């Protein structure tokens, strides 16, 4: 039995990312530590965030630490450090120093056996390179269920193609959840890197697309239940990721997922509105432009026209919004978003006497982001607002004066939309004399050519 144990120990000790099994089996921890610590020191020079691990899992003392001798609590603490280190090292797995450092954790703490899910997820963005296959070659016989789909690739020692990952994520929620949780935790810890975000965003987007196709049903009850299942699966991830304002690339990745979800899914207004509000709650200068595009995709799918108070408030805070919308509008249809915003701003004027939005409406009407028909409706709404606003919300009459001058400027503008405004005045049969009196301003003389 003893000789069997020794054999098993030797076999375990021979599992290495760098060395041939025969060489690895004969290495002492002291020799190994020298080699691996060199890699770790190099990592510290590249990124000082690695340094704290030098006093724990890479300390001199670590040479004499053995998981089997450690208590459950000590093991849990070790797992936490290993997880954190792997997430940070993920960005540099194509560099030898990172592989050397991870080699130490494999040889000393057997993380390929004890932290299999984490190390596999860490290596996943590199599933096409030889290091991934080497990792597969040293995994224990029974790997966690979530990665059991890799078994054929472990047996044949070839890299799994991307399509296999997408297929698994589409049909098995546990894999998608594992990848999402890992990615979001990494972002929360500010340890993200482009390859991880790229992998997650691509797989998530394709999986959502696939799940929407899979969930289609001619029977509305089944369709509804499928939609619900999908929302329960991706809703919490999107909600958490959208507000990670320190990681704009993750937010933009979410916008991508949402674009597919909104364009293909049969979302109700409540879901769309909630997504819109979560989106604007988290966007920053770095995610604003794609955020506006995504917001407009959502607005296009919503049957309600007017923007909600939360979305309106967020848009009011955006600097140079009309210029930005005019620019984005060159490539994207922002009609429903701009229309919904103008309606909400006019509503605020009428109900609350809050005319902060008035300076936005005018350039939006002239920026060609609205269709002629939408511009006509907004202009009519302005005329109507001029009638509706009363002393109750506008004690000094300032708002009415502002409204009047806006209406006048718009009706005098040298552009194609002028016809739309003239038509709106004719359609609404606004009595300009009466409006003039109400607004206490000379409109008619200035309206005449």
């Amino acid at each position, binding site marked *: 039995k003893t000789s069997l144990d020794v054999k098993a120990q030797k076999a375990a000790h021979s599992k290495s990312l760098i060395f041939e099994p025969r060489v690895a089996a004969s290495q002492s921890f002291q020799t190994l530590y020298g080699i691996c610590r060199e890699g770790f020191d190099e990592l510290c020079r590249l990124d000082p965030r690695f340094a704290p691990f030098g006093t724990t899992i890479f300390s001199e003392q670590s040479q004499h630490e053995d998981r089997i001798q450690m208590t459950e609590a000590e093991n849990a603490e070790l797992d936490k450090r290993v997880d954190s280190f792997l997430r940070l090292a993920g960005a540099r797995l*194509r560099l030898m120093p990172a592989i050397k450092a991870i080699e130490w954790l494999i040889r000393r703490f057997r993380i390929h056996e004890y932290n299999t899910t984490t190390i596999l997820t860490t290596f996943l*963005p*590199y599933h*096409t*390179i030889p290091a991934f296959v080497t990792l597969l070659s040293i995994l224990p016989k029974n790997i966690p269920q979530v990665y059991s789909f890799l078994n054929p690739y472990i047996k044949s020692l070839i890299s799994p193609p*991307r*399509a296999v990952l*997408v297929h698994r994520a589409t049909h098995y929620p546990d894999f998608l959840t594992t990848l999402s949780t890992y990615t979001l935790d990494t972002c929360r810890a500010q340890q993200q890197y*482009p*390859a*991880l*975000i*790229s*992998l997650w*965003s*691509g797989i998530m*987007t*394709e999986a959502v*697309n*696939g799940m929407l*196709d899979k969930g289609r049903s001619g029977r509305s009850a089944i369709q509804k239940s499928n939609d619900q299942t999908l929302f329960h699966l991706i809703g919490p991830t999107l909600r958490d990721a959208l507000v990670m304002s320190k990681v704009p*690339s993750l937010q*933009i*990745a979410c*916008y*991508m997922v949402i*674009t*597919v979800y909104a*364009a*293909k*899914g*049969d979302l109700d207004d409540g879901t769309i509105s909630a997504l819109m509000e979560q989106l604007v709650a988290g966007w920053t200068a770095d995610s604003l432009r*794609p955020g506006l*595009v*995504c917001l407009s*995709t959502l607005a*296009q*799918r919503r*049957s309600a026209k007017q923007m909600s108070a939360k979305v309106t408030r967020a848009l009011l805070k955006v600097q140079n919004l009309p210029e930005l919308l005019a620019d984005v509008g060159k*490539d*994207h*249809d922002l009609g*429903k978003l701009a229309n919904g915003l103008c309606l909400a701003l006019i509503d605020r004027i009428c109900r609350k006497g809050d005319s902060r939005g008035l300076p936005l409406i005018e350039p939006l009407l002239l920026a060609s982001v609205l269709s002629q*028909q*939408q511009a*006509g*409706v907004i202009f*009519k*709404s302005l*005329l*109507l607002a001029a009638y509706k606003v009363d002393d109750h919300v506008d004690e000094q009459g300032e708002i009415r004066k502002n409204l009047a001058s806006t209406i006048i400027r718009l009706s005098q503008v040298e552009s194609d939309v002028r016809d739309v405004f003239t038509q709106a005045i004719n*359609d*609404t*049969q*606004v009595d300009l004399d009466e409006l003039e009196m109400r607004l206490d301003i000379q409109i008619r003389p200035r309206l005449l050519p």
Partner: protein
Amino acid sequence: DIDMTDRVDDDAIYPAVVAPQRLTELFDTAPSFAMPPVEELFYQVTKLFTSKAAVPAP
């Protein structure tokens, strides 16, 4: 009376029809560590899913 309805409303909503391989083509061009910036991919996905061509006739 002021008529506030917009009668010729062409806002009818249809789900986008995009073949899954079109999406795969966007993402499977390079390993994750050599992909274009996520913002660029976002605009490509948006183009694929919101272009007028993707909306079928009712």
